[in-house]
């Protein structure tokens, strides 16, 4: 039942702004919405909602488990939500409250006083001074009464056990330094490929792109051996130094963007006596900041999530490890305690997720170029 204006507004907000000049000129390809489409809209939107709910439900489960007590997780027949059994204080003891079906057909909440295999005695919380009630049957078949009780302390426990502040610092330091390296080197290389004609340029660019398709295994051992000879294994250097030598993905992304910037201003700057470096800094970069931000965010997420690099280079020294590696080590020790594992898992993923939500439009923009101009 949406009016045309509301639908148009929706369409406007939904379509991400493209920053590639040629693309922007081409415009979006969505045909305009028509009247009488509301049934299709409803069905499609419903499908998307159900799909999304299924897709993100593991996250919800993780949150629920992170705040469950270990007792609840290991017991069968407990509620889906985090809960503790309700108890009743009787003669200085905490007795669990159970739902007991009595011979007269009524079901009452009674506190289990003396559990027995064949018969148990219960106390009525409403009348604790009355004589205990004896009930025939196995008390284990009875249902507990639960109250909502999130166990936030799981997060605090993980914070100490995993040494979260240190892992966070390590991860952040590695991510930031390697992002700086990536930005510096990829900007230079992309500028070289985008703005200068030199013999072998297209061959070298093809070679650069080809490295995307190269299996890591075919270079890892000599590289590892060199780092070991240099005494770098067990330090951050193997993760940081290579980022200062550019990588194919980010060079490609930046070059594609630089190509969309008109050369007139470069030429004007050159006439004014600006050298290539000056042109890059005062002409290209001020116009290219969206792609710089996109690459920075991509690389931060990549570095945050990287597992293999830290695994082979940092395993020997727990003090310098990243959060991804720390979580795996934590799982190796505490795998019997799913509540702690899920809490640790959430503490690992929360920062990239929040960072993404704040910067999501740059993600779309960054990839728009890669996809279309491939």
């Amino acid at each position, binding site marked *: 039942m949406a009016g045309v204006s509301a639908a148009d507004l929706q369409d406007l907000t939904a379509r991400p702004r493209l920053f590639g000049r040629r693309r922007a000129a081409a415009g979006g390809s969505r*045909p305009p919405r028509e009247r009488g489409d509301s049934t299709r809209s409803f069905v499609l939107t419903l499908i998307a909602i159900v799909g999304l709910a299924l897709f993100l439900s593991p*996250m919800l489960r993780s949150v629920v488990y992170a705040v469950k007590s270990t007792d609840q997780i290991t017991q069968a027949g407990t509620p889906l939500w985090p809960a503790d059994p309700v108890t009743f204080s009787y003669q200085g003891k905490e007795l669990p409250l159970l739902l007991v079906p009595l011979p007269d057909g009524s079901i009452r909440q009674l506190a289990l006083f003396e559990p027995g295999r064949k018969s148990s005695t219960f106390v009525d919380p409403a009348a604790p001074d009355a004589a205990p009630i004896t009930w025939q049957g196995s008390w284990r078949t009875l249902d507990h009464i639960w109250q909502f009780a999130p166990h936030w302390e799981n997060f605090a426990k993980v914070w100490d056990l995993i040494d979260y502040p240190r892992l966070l610092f390590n991860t952040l330091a590695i991510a930031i330094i390697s992002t700086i390296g990536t930005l510096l080197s990829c900007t230079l290389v992309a500028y*070289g490929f985008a703005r200068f004609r030199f013999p072998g340029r297209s061959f070298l660019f093809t070679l650069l792109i080809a490295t995307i398709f190269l299996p890591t295994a*075919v270079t890892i051992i000599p590289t590892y051996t060199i780092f070991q000879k240099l005494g770098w294994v067990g330090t951050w250097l193997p993760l940081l130094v290579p980022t200062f030598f550019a990588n194919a993905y980010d060079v490609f992304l930046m070059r594609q963007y630089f190509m969309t910037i008109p050369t007139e201003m470069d030429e004007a700057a050159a006439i004014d006596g600006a050298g290539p470096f000056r042109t890059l800094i005062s002409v290209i970069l001020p116009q290219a900041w969206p792609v710089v931000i996109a690459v920075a965010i991509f690389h931060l997420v990549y570095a945050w999530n990287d597992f293999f690099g830290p695994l082979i280079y940092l395993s020997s020294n727990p003090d310098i490890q990243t959060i991804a590696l720390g979580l795996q080590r934590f799982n190796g020790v505490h795998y019997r305690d799913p509540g702690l594992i899920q809490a640790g*898992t959430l503490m690992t993923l929360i920062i990239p997720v929040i960072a993404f939500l704040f910067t*999501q439009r740059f993600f779309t923009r960054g990839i728009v170029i890669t*996809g279309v101009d491939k």
Partner: protein
Amino acid sequence: MTAPSAARSRSRPRFSGLAWRRARWGYVFIAPWIIGFLAFTALPMIATLAFTFTNVNLNQAEPLQFVGLRNYQTLVSDQRTWDSLAVTLKFALLALPVGVCLPFVVALLLHSRHLRGSGAFRVLFFLPYVVPFVAGVFVWQGMLSADTGWVNGLLKFLGISHPPDWLQDPTWIYPGLVIMGLWGIGGGMIIYLAGLKGIPSDLYEAAKIDGAGAFATLRHITIPMMSPVIFFTIVLGVVDVLQYFLVPLVLKNGTGEPGGSTNFFNLYLYQNFFTFQNMSYGATLAWLLFAISLGLTLLLFRSARHWVYYAGEAR
């Protein structure tokens, strides 16, 4: 080679003095990558190839020597190599179609003009892509657990009384791993979305005038126009799936459980490097992997001529 312009009297046909000075700057700017390429790609690749003809290992007890094709002979007769290759292939046959098609379907849904709030859906479907994969493994490990997992909870609710034990059963482990990989669809999805946006709307208008239905439009316009992006996704997917091993490594600690079903090729390769420290044999496996990747990629590029449609020269 002849100079395009007669005005140029210098011996170099394409580069005048000024152009050469510019060209030199070009090399200066790409120098970081050239150095990095030589140091971290080209030379290590050659060294890896050289390793395959020697007996290098990390603790080098016997003297380093040239062993000819011995590593390759071992390779041919090593049952574990072929078993692990079969594991990778089995997984790939399931993971690759899902990894190529599902992001496409989701992208089509998100691109539909009938969908309300597509901006929010786009963000939320992409979201799990930024989750560190180790965290993703632990989230899904719980989700797929036989008795406390919500997947089986849902299946039981739908009337399936004995749902599979996804991660402990040698048959169900592959679908299980594919489900675990679903959180990665964001990458492919967003590339497809970019491609869908690039399709000129007049094609759809023309199809509409010709009376084409939704399916015909998809079949004759969307898919052909998207074929370069689909091709790109398939090539990257093949290269990635051949290297797949980190998820089972974290999940099963590299044991290959259940029943050897997670002894992926790349796992065996890295075990040779880091566990058995047999660098030479590991290098031989690495080159085998490289050869397979390259072969499949070239095959795909060759097939592309028959089904990938590039609209116009300008692109």
